[in-house]
């Protein structure tokens, strides 16, 4: 058993120091993942909490993957579910959604550059944003993303290319990138 799985198992058994290590390693990235998919800081924090609870309930029989992979897959699925719920509730008031997202980002992202980058990622359409987040914030390989999203490998690769290219263009316009 790898050291990260050993740490995970000890945290499952109530070891507080293992828990602290686990959250320190994974919480910021999971929070970004949930935030970038849902655009809501409140939802993102709930998703991260729920992700850890579900992971702790899980009986891990085959730990060939990584702890990061397990946690980010749970967070990703919860975030998609939450996004659907938010869209249903918010209806079609796009301006309200954008304003709310910007306020939400500022709640969690204290760094100005991080906030602008997050805004840029959130401005992508769902299908491109999803692939970008899974690649960079869930640390999944292209094959894993293809499996998770049920898309072909070629589609995943073309979407990540477009997503990063578009982000670079927007960030240059904003003066974040040279």
């Amino acid at each position, binding site marked *: 058993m790898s050291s990260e799985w050993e740490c995970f198992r000890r945290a499952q058994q109530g070891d507080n120091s293992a828990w602290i290590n686990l*959250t320190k390693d994974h919480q910021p*990235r999971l929070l*970004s993942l949930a935030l970038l998919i849902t655009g809501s800081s409140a939802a993102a924090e709930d998703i991260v909490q729920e992700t850890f*609870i579900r992971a702790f309930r899980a009986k891990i029989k085959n730990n060939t993957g990584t702890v990061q992979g397990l946690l980010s897959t749970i967070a990703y699925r919860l975030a998609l579910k939450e996004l659907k719920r938010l869209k249903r509730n918010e209806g079609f008031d796009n301006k309200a959604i954008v304003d709310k997202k910007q306020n939400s980002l500022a709640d*969690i992202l204290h760094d100005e550059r991080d906030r602008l*980058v*997050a805004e840029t990622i959130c401005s992508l359409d769902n299908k491109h944003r999803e692939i970008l987040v899974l690649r960079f914030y869930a640390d999944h390989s292209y094959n894993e993303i293809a499996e998770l999203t049920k898309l072909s490998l070629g589609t995943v690769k073309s979407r990540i*290319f477009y997503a990063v290219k578009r982000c*670079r263009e927007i*960030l240059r316009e904003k003066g974040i990138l040279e």
Partner: protein
Amino acid sequence: MNHISEDKILEYALEIIDNDKELDEIELHLKECAECRKQLEVIHNEINIIGNVRGRGQFLSIPEVNRKHRLAYTLFKAAALIIFGFSLGYGTSNWTHRETISILPTYLKPSPPADSLIGFAASDATHIDEEYHNLILDD
């Protein structure tokens, strides 16, 4: 020297080029061209910025759910075991042969009255002679 296009360098940086021949050509060019290497470095940095937004949320306390869940699971297992045991006992009780027990009704033969009471009827016990009867009424 023809430089590699920016899009191609981005594809290379994202590791999405499948064609081995194309990949070899790019790597060969990068070895020789400082300008394209510089461009690749810039793109790597940009990808790093795009992929490294760090959220800072509240510290999460350790969930108690696991212990609660285990307790619930243990209780569930105990309940299931009891129900299973009861069902098993009930089920096997129908398989074993039982001897039919028949209980016949027993009839008790009434015993004869004591000898001293023979010759008296039930009404004799309540009979009051007339002289005593008057005494009772006078009182």
